[in-house]
């Protein structure tokens, strides 16, 4: 197992270097002079310009600049935001829990609804229920989620007035950020009603972000189940007289889950892309909205740092999924 982990880590090194190169060249590829870009609209005096050129090392050869950049990275220095002057890493860390909270809820929603939907469709294969579930799933998969979010706002916030339109919690509450996860922090605080407010703010974004993963999981579960239901051991289990529930719920599902878990893991990148849109619609103060806002504010160090952080996180999660796949799938575990 350790050898497998090391091998996979080794394969990641070129990708990691490539990712750092991408984010390093991002600022240099932008049209215009990097110092003037960093200075923003105020501009700089020629003396200050030269000072900054030296300070940022733009006079050095490009490979040396890259090595300096890498060195800073490993010390956790991703530069500072032009707008807020805060270190990029620190901003990322304060906003990241909001994105994780939303992402985890969306994934839970997708699994809780998508898995049973896929199983039902497979068991009722060819029946009306199967067609209904699969057509709905394909519609979910085709959903422009930014529009889906607006529709839900029209319906639930506008017409019915059930849910709030934006943010993580009502302005009435001030919650001390202990963990950064609003659901936990509100429970830790003594404010009555704060937890409910946090939950009501989470519902619509969760549905919106979870829609596409839900559709993917439902489709994948159905096809994995169909494959497994044809296998000999399922027929044997049935022949032994086991109940339908036991055959499907235990014998078949356990094997069908292997590809499904991989798919769930691979949705992390999709989730980040979705978070950009979902957070923008619901003014959710997470990493996705931060990135979009920074692109518009021309806060390029933030875009550079955020890009790198997100790519590294996606890489790490994919690695973990890869290893877990090896753990749960005996075929892979034993063949190294």
């Amino acid at each position: 197992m350790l050898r497998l982990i090391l091998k996979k880590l080794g394969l990641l090194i070129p990708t990691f270097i490539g990712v750092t190169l991408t984010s390093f060249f991002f600022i240099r590829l932008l049209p215009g002079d990097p110092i003037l870009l960093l200075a923003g609209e105020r501009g700089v005096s020629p003396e200050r310009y030269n000072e900054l050129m030296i300070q940022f090392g733009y006079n050095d050869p490009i490979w040396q600049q890259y090595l300096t950049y890498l060195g800073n990275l490993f010390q956790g220095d991703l530069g500072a935001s032009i707008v807020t002057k805060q270190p990029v890493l620190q901003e990322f860390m304060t906003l990241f829990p909001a994105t994780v909270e939303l992402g985890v809820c969306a994934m839970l929603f997708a699994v809780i609804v998508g898995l049973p939907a896929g199983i039902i469709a497979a068991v009722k294969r060819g029946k009306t229920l199967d067609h209904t579930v699969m057509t709905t799933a394909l519609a979910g998969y085709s959903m422009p989620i930014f529009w889906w979010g607006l529709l839900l706002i029209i319906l639930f916030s506008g017409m019915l007035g059930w849910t709030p339109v934006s943010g993580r919690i009502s302005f009435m509450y001030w919650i001390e950020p202990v963990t950064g996860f609003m659901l936990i922090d509100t429970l830790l605080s003594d404010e009555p009603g704060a937890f409910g407010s946090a939950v009501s703010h989470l519902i619509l974004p969760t549905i919106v972000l979870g829609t596409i993963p839900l559709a993917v999981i439902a489709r994948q579960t159905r096809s994995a189940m169909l494959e497994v239901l044809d296998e000999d051991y399922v027929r044997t289990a049935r022949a032994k007289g086991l109940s339908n529930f036991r055959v499907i719920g235990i014998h078949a599902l356990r094997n069908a889950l292997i590809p499904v878990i991989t798919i769930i893991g691979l949705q992390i990148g999709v989730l980040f892309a979705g978070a950009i849109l979902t957070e923008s619609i619901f003014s959710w103060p997470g990493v996705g909205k931060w990135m979009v806002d920074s692109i518009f504010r021309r806060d390029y160090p933030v875009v550079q740092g955020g890009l790198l952080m997100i790519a590294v996180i996606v890489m790490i999660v994919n690695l973990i999924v890869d290893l877990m796949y090896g753990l749960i799938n005996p075929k892979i575990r034993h063949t190294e």
Partner: protein
Amino acid sequence: MADVTQNSAPDTRFELIVNFWRHFRTNRGAVAGLIFFIALVIIALGAWFIAPHSPIEQYRDALLLPPAWQEGGDWSYVLGTDAVGRDLLSRLIYGSQYSLFIGVVVVSVALVVGVCLGLVAGTFGGWIDTFIMRIMDIILAFPSLLLALVLVAILGPSLLNAMIAIAVVQQPYYVRLTRASVMSEMSREYVMAARVSGVRTLRLMFVTVLPNCMAPLIVQAALSFSTAILDAAALGFLGMGAQPPTPEWGTMLAESREFILRAPWVVTFPGLAILTTVLAINLIGDGLRDALDPKLKRS
């Protein structure tokens, strides 16, 4: 399909198509998707005749009119008007041109470049293969929409740049698919035979091997056609794609965001147009996959 290949060449191709259509026809969803798609193409091509109004003409006396069947609606603006008095139906009709155009351009660029890179990687192997595949890994390490956004930030927001960015982001899937099929084809006897008879490498790549790798690529093209439309609309929605007053569906949604509670129709219809178009193409894609690759058939 194996027995078909023994016939003479022109017959084979015809039979393949007939065979394919026989499979495809049985999938009702796919046929419905195809009919919708053809209708959309006709609408896009005939927009100048079909649209009742100009997509950018502002009727100042008809601001935010509701659809005709609602109270206060006007049948000359069937789906209502937007905040500056433009006819929504006409804008949607012209918008279909943009979405189809985006799909065609993105898929063509991604397909051609991706297939070439995949062929090179799969045929030559070695360091060039490693090099190409590592670059694809790097692209895949970024969430697609984020990378597209950043590329547009570098290139400047416009429809053309959005299409370039989306094509770059979709590249890796074509490269991986092509490479995988090329590598499995390379060990077949017919490739060996072609090699022995002295076929040049270029001819071997494009004429001998490539046609046998097409099935998964066609399916991927259909799926990435719909993804391209979705991503372009998302970029337009974020203000990084087509710029106003272009009647691109995502851009229309972005413009109408502030009216969602006052005039829900300006939000509803453009999104519905995106959803139905993407759904139709995905239905076709599913049908193509089932018809072209019986191994992947799901039901």
